[in-house]
Each structure stands twice: as structure tokens, then as C-alpha cells.
């Protein structure tokens, strides 16, 4: 199929290059690719943490005396998050990263880093929690449950589906120009849809999974697991923001008609995901009578995700459980060093001292008494 001529001028910076240029170049961080990527780079890197930073032992006293149905719900919740993080790190971020033109080295660096945090750190930390709280056979049962649960599988299908379309387009564009059966605009649409799915996953579906751990954390229970969730939350909040920004850049280049069409697609996806998520929530939370509360939180986060994508919220404003809302606040919490690690730590920016730094003009207030 011959390539369709361009219907309109696509903005230079998002215009995908068909085919990709032959000359290789290197990342030059002295130049900015845009006015936000380097900031997100800094923020992401300064938030780096490892699952082993948190010692889960002291949660065991609390975990052991929880009723079975509570343990079950807590575990299933984390298992859902595991699945989401796994595929986001395995496929989601990398696909979006690969789809960007070769020249966007810095954007790819940020996306790749975010991918690594998701499958190498977040997903692993859920396993650390499982390993501490559950015996091996229970962990296996849990994963089997995930494999067999229709709602979870459908959610993954819907999200990963959007990634796979983009993945194929990228592959064909790069390596099989003969087989290109889509326009540049369609490529951009696929990119946007994948980013949309990504933001839904990061800013909506993840957050909904945070409900239960934060609910406990707010009551001072399972605090160490809660600390891990806090660190993950801190990351997810900027992941969703970043991909959201990238998506808006693309969306702005579509004409009004196309935008309406895409919004329609998006709401369709939203409703399908909402349906599956609701059923999943009922499966997990009905035994505890919390489903209603959790769904309020789900709608709250769906609104947030839409805002990250540049749209208005669609669900009406509702009062979310204050325990959980406060758990979302990632501002550094004062903490007792002796029992918790705290979320304030970061890589420091180094700068060397100068000779003049050793000299002070201010009057000495210290004791002249000796």
C-alpha cells in the first residue's frame, strides 16, 4: 500500500521520521530536547531506592494476627500490582521508548529508567513482601490465582494490547518498510493510545491498588510494607505525569475531528477497564465490605489520570477515606530514624568547596570562655 500524502503539517518535533536516519549520533545532555525531560530525569534519579532498603521484619507481628480474609485481600491486591508493574517494565515503557525517534536519547533514558524501576525495583519489592509474609506454597497459589483471574487477564489484555499495536508499528517502520500499512498520523495515534494506556495504568490502576496498604498504613499497621508503597507511589506519581506530558504533545497535533475520535476511543477503554476493575475489586474486597469505599477511590484516581492526559475529570467529586488520601501525600514525613527509613533520602548533588568557604565574616558567637 502506498504511503498516503500528508494531509497537514505535523509539528517538526513529533513528526516521526520514515525511514529512520542512517547516521548514528550520541546523547548530548548539554542541549535540551524539551523544557521538562531533564527535570524529570533529575527527579527520577534522585528518588532511586532499592527494595532491600526496607526491613519488613517488624510488620510480621501485625501480619500474623490478621484474619485470613484480610491477609487474602492484602496479598491479592499486591499481586495485581505485581502484574501491572511487571508488564509496564517489560513492555509498556520500553515500547513507548522504542517508538520515539532515535534522536530522543534523553527521553528514552528517562523512560528506560522508569521501566527499570518498575520491574527491577517495584515488582521485586512486592515479592519481598510476599516472601516475608507468606509461605512458598501460598505465594505460588497467589500467582496461579492471578493467571486464572479473568478480570486481571482482561485488564492486562486491554493495556498490553495497545502496547503491542505500537510495538508492531515501530518494528515495521524501522525494519520492514515494504510492509508499512499505516500513515504517519496513524503511527502517532498508536503512540498516543499506548501512552494513554500507560497513564491509565500508572496513575489510575496502580493507585487503586494502593488503597489497602495505605488504609493499613494510616492506622499505623504494616508500616514497613506501607513505607515501600510510599516509595513506589512517589515514583508512580511522576511516571504518570511524564508520559502524560508526552502524550499531550502528540494530541495537540491532531485536528478537532481526530481528537474527538480519539477521546471516544479513550472513554471506551476507560469504561472497559472500569468494568473489569470493579469486578476485580468485588472479588477481593466483598468479603471485607470495603468494595464501595475502594470504588470511590478508583473513580478519584481515574479523574487524576484523565487530568494527567490533559482532559477534564468525568466522575463527580466524592469524599475519599481520609486515611488513604493522606497516605498519598508524598511530601517528606518526619520520621523516627530508629524505626523507619523515611522517604526523604536522595542522591546529593556534589559540588566542591572553595577556599573562601572556610572564612567567615560574621561575629563569633561561640564561647570565648575556655
Amino acid at each position, binding site marked *: 500500500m502506498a504511503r498516503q500524502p500528508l494531509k497537514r503539517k505535523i509539528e517538526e518535533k513529533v513528526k516521526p521520521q520514515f525511514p529512520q536516519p542512517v547516521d548514528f549520533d550520541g546523547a548530548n545532555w548539554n542541549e535540551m530536547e524539551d523544557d521538562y525531560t531533564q527535570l524529570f530525569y533529575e*527527579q527520577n534519579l*534522585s*528518588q*532511586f*531506592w532499592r527494595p*532491600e532498603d526496607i526491613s519488613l521484619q*517488624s510488620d510480621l*507481628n501485625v501480619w500474623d494476627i490478621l484474619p485470613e480474609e*484480610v491477609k487474602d485481600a492484602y496479598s491479592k491486591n499486591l499481586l495485581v500490582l505485581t502484574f501491572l508493574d511487571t508488564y509496564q517494565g517489560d513492555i509498556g515503557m520500553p515500547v513507548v521508548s522504542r517508538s520515539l525517534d532515535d534522536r530522543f536519547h534523553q527521553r528514552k533514558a528517562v523512560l528506560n529508567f522508569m521501566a527499570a524501576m518498575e520491574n527491577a525495583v517495584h515488582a521485586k519489592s512486592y515479592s519481598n513482601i510476599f516472601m516475608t509474609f507468606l509461605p512458598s506454597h501460598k505465594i505460588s497459589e497467589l500467582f496461579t490465582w492471578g493467571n486464572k483471574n479473568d478480570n486481571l487477564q482482561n485488564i492486562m489484555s486491554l493495556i498490553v494490547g495497545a502496547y503491542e499495536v505500537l510495538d508492531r508499528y515501530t518494528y515495521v517502520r524501522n525494519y520492514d518498510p515494504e510492509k508499512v500499512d499505516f500513515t504517519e498520523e496513524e503511527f502517532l495515534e498508536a503512540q498516543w493510545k499506548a501512552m494513554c494506556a500507560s497513564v491509565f495504568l500508572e496513575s489510575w490502576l496502580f493507585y487503586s491498588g494502593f488503597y489497602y496498604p495505605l488504609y493499613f*498504613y*494510616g*492506622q*499505623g499497621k504494616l508500616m514497613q510494607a506501607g*513505607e515501600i508503597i510510599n516509595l513506589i507511589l512517589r515514583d508512580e*506519581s*511522576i511516571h504518570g*505525569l511524564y508520559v*502524560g*506530558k508526552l502524550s499531550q504533545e502528540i494530541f495537540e497535533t491532531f485536528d478537532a475531528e481526530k481528537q474527538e475520535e480519539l477521546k471516544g476511543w479513550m472513554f471506551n477503554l476507560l469504561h472497559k477497564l472500569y468494568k473489569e476493575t470493579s469486578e476485580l475489586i468485588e472479588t477481593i474486597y466483598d468479603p471485607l*465490605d*470495603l468494595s464501595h469505599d475502594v470504588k470511590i477511590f478508583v473513580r478519584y484516581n481515574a479523574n487524576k489520570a484523565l*487530568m494527567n492526559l*490533559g482532559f477534564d475529570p468525568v466522575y463527580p467529586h466524592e469524599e475519599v*477515606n*481520609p*486515611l488513604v*488520601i*493522606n497516605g498519598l*501525600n*508524598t*511530601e*517528606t*514525613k*518526619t*520520621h*523516627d*530514624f*530508629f*524505626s*523507619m527509613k523515611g522517604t*526523604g*533520602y*536522595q*542522591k*546529593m548533588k*556534589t*559540588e566542591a*568547596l572553595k*577556599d573562601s*568557604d*572556610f572564612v*567567615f565574616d*560574621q561575629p*563569633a*558567637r*561561640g*564561647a*570565648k*570562655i*575556655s
Partner: protein
Amino acid sequence: MDRNMVPEWILLNNQVIDENGGIKDLNKDKEAVKSYFLNYINKKTQFFHSLEEKLEYLVENEYYEAEFLKLYTQEQIAEIYDIAYQAKFRFPTYMGAFKFYNDYALKSRDGNNFLERYEDRLSINALYHASGDMDKARRLIRALIAQDFTPATPTLLNTGKRHRGEFVSCFLLEAGDSLNDISRIGEFSMQLSKIGGGVAINLTNLRAKGESIKGIPNVSKGVIGVMKLLDNNFRYADQMGQRTGAGAVYLNVFHPDIEDFLQTKKLNADDDIRIKTLSMGVVIPDKMIELARENKEMYVFYPHTVFKEYGKDFADIAIEMDKWYDELAENPNVRKRKINPRKLLDQIATLQGESGYPYIMFADNVNNQNPLADKVKFSNLCTEILQPTITSHYADYDKKEQDDIGLDISCNLASGHMGNMMKHKTIKETVRAAMDIMNSVSTKTDISYVPAVAKANRLNRSIGFGIMGHHGYIVENYIAYGSEENIDLIDVFFNSVNYYSLEYSMELAKETGQKFYRFEQSKYADGSYFKGRGEILPKTDKVKALFDDMQLPTNEDWKLLKENVKKYGLYNSHRLAIAPNGSIGYVMSATPSLTPVKQLVEERTYGNSKTYFPMPALDVAEFMYETAYRMDNFKIIDVIATAQKHVDQGISFELGITSEETTRDLQKYYLYAHYQGIKTLYYTRTQKLKIDECESCAV
């Protein structure tokens, strides 16, 4: 189990702030306190028909000790309880009430009922520590119920209880360089950790990695191996699962293991060397700063070679680096290695940003102001204790009589509430009441199974009176932190506190005939301590008004005091130390210590609880509160330095930095603090600016 199962008071307390951490509704906290009492505390407090019945029950059922109560008649006991209850005390914040009832109040063994209220706990403290002296008991209960001061947590918590922990929780041990010494330190750490103690250990004496043992070269493992052992010890010997043990290790920067020491806390350190729970401190003599200033390289010296050459423990040499550096540098028998001091300072700053640690002790600032003959070589878990130690050397197990017991440290603490002391005009009375309790603790405590600590307590009777509520008080009076008025207030206030503590300690020495160990060799004995000390009167109008009709020590008072101290001595080797007071500060509704608050509504995440604490006076003077992260650290240092002149031990002082600040910024604070005579620096806390503040994402 739905939202309705979460206790109402927890939900209310959570509604104090909104999702961005800003203040939403302070009244929710007041409602939370009310709800907490109505729906929980009052319902769970065990009812007794009379005080007599209550006490009988508590003694019979082995909740309370009987002995101290027998020193009083029923009427006398009732009088003390009446004074407490008539004050009609009410907790102003949920966090305060929660902390008290959760952590301090006596509960029934099954955990279902409260057997004490706040007034009861205070009355017991007053009666117990007055040891039968009714006048003293009255003074104590009045000061306690007015919240003019509070004893430290272990004292407040354990007093009067039949099954209890120790009254003291602050210990410092100095490790010697033999396997016996290391084993003993390991054992003592666990024993003290078991009783809820925080233990700091000086590892400077230990030979470094790669030194010889019994003549065989290159075999010693250095301090890291010992740190790993101690790390595990503290995690194992916790207080029956309630709290992991708290330990800290200190190392002088002239020790060759200093770089490895700092590596153990790095974010990406490998598991075999990473230290998970130990806190860490570095001891920095002036020599290092001098070499850093001149941008020269500095030698680190290998302890075992120093010992072989001079017969002295390395910690004793490293603490006097100005005296020893050149000699050691030139002596070929002393093994040494060069490092870059500026790089080391940078490493320290980087590590503080990543982990908050290490603590810093400016060795020469400490010892230049140290009135005692022996040197202070390290500090404690909270960096406010600064006392000299003498290293112990332990013999083999079957030759215990050959143990050479030196002097370690235990310190009894209490804190005055600055705001209340000023408002009630009770500076002198409060200092004395606090000293009464701390001295009582000293007399009644004998941790004989850690002999060097027991010996020090017996000989020195060191105590540490501190202060809380400073930031809250200045905010209420519309004084900005770091302003001239603030400095004025601090200077006058602490001069008074110092004076009254010296006066009382002297009176006790006179009365008992007991002076602290080696008083005669101290600067108190020859009067040189008093040089430059005298009356300090308020200079600014605002502060003059605050001190209005309060008596302040005059030049004549100081002159007389100096003479009396020379003549009668001092009962206590140390009197003042400003601790950080975390949990106790909430019970007292006070901003912590002397440092500025970190957040207007603090979310405190402890191991077993999470609550919101609005700062005192938020409802009337919110605009006055500038938080620590946004304040000019140079100004904060000025305030602390002013107080430091009057405090014989240390002041726990946390630096607060934002994620924008670099290692150079942090190091400039260190240098300025050193310049201003600051003795120790505690954690450095970072607060990452939320992404909205860095740039406008406008989502």
C-alpha cells in the same frame, strides 16, 4: 470491616490536613482528642471507689512497688494527687493524648484497661523521687502538672512500677582493642538494649583493617567487622519485640578505617557491608579542618602501631590531634596513609544527604569548652551527651578480678518547657525540681552488670537538663527564629538556667559532702570556668518585657557562686544537655528541643503508629512559623551557638536542607557551625521539594 470500623478519632485526626499536606481544619484535632477520650480512654479506664482502693489494688497486684508509698501517710499521698487533679489538665492535641496513653500510662496486663491517667503517673513520679520528703513532693508535682518540665521517657514511664525497665536509657561505652574488650562491648550492648537503652560506642581504639595481631601482619579486620556484630546485636536484643535496639558507633576521622566506615551506609552498599540499623558519628578534630582549609592532604594513623610506639590507646591520642599530629607524621614507626580531607568532608556531606548520617562531633570545640580534666572522645545516640571516658580493658573470663574498669557513661535526662517556665516565671524552681528527679534516678540506679557504667554513675552523678518548646514560645510572642530578639532571649534564658543548675549542684555538694570524681582537677575548682561569665540582662524591648518581673542572676550572684563552688564543689560532673525529645515533646505539646519545626503539621510515622500533630500556636500565629527547611541555616546556627555557651554538654541540632542544596552548601554549614563553636551536629534531614514546586507541570 468498612470505614466505620476505623476509630472515629483516627479519622478526625487525619482530617486536620488535606491531600497536599496543607492545613485543612485544626478544629478536627480538638474533636479528635475529645472523641478519643469519650469513646476510648474513659471507657477503658478502670474505675476505683477511692484513691486508697486504687493504690491497694495496684500494689497487691504487683503493678506498683510498695516501698516508696510506705514513706508517706495516706493523707500525704492524697494531698499530692489532689494537687495534680485540681490543675484540671487537658491534653491540647490528639497526638499528645495518644502518645501518653499508648506509650506511658499503666495498663492492665491483658492490655484491655488503663489503670492510670496522666495525673496519676505524675503523682507517682513526684512521690517516688521525693523519697518521703513532702516539701519536695509538693514542689515536684506542681512543676510536673504545670508541665514546666518532664523527666525523660524511661523515668516518666518506669517510675513506681513493680515490673519495670531502668530509669536511664542513655549509655556510652568505649571499646578497647582486644577480643575480650570487643566481646564485652557486644555483651553490654545487648544487655543495655534489652532494657531499652540507647548505646553509643567509640570504636576509635580498635586497630584498623590490615594491621597485625600478635605479630602476624595484615590480619586484622578493622572496625567494620565489629560494626556488623553490633548491628546484629541491637536488632536481636530488642525490648520484647516492642522496639528494635538503638545503637550508634563513633569513629575519629584520623582512623584509617574512616572511609570504609562511611561506605557502610551508602544507598547501594553491598549487603555484606551494609549496616542496617546502627547510627553513626564521626569525631572531627580541628586538625582536619585546618588541613582541609589549606587544601593539604592529611595522614591517618594506624592505631596498633601507635599503641606499640607510645603505649597509649589510640582514642586518647586522636582526640588531641593538634598536639600529636606532627609527631606521628614524622615518626617512621607509626604506620600511616594519606587521604584528602576535602574529599572526606564531601563524602560526609553526600552520605548525610543519602542517609541522614553520620553525626558530627567537633572534637576541639568540645574539649576547649570542657571544664573537666579528662577529654571527651565521642558522643551519644542523640549527640547531646559530652562526657569524658576512660577505656576499660577486660581480662579473660576466668580472671575477672584483673579487669581494668575505666569510666563509661550513663546520663539521666529531663527537659524543661521553655514556654511554661517563662509564663509561670519558674526558671529556678524548674531547674531544681528537674535536678531532684535526675539525682534521685542517679541514686536509685545501679546497672552493676555493666561495671564501667555503674562506676561512672556512682562517681560522677552526671545529669542533663534540656529544653523543649522554644520555637512554639517565640512564635507565640511574634519573635522570628534567628532574629536579634531570639538571640537575646536565648542568651538571657540559658545563662539563668546554667546559673541555677550550678547553684543547686553546689548546694547539694555542700549538704552531702560529695563532689564529683576529680572535681579538684576541674576548671570549677580553680575558678577558671567562671571567667567571662556574669549577668546577662535582656537588651531588646520585647525580651525585657518577657522577663519583666523575673529575678535574673547578677554579677554579684555569679561572683559568690564561683567562690562557693570552689569551696564546696559540685555534686554533679555535668548538668545540662539539650536532647532532641521526640515522643515526650508531644505529651508536653511542645515544639521539640531548640531547633525549628520541620512541618506545620507533622505527620509522625513511628514503628507502630501514624498521627498528625499540628504545631502549638498554629491557630493564632501560623504566619510566624517558618519551617526548618526554609530557614537560613546560618541563622539557626547562630541561635544554637548562643545557647551552647551556657550548656556544659551538647545540643542535639539537626540541619534541614532541601533537595536543591549541594554538598558544598551542606559543608559550608558544617564549617560555619564549627566556626561558631557548635559542638555536635545531629542528623541532616532532607525534604525533597514536591515536583510542583520545581517546575510547573500544569496538568
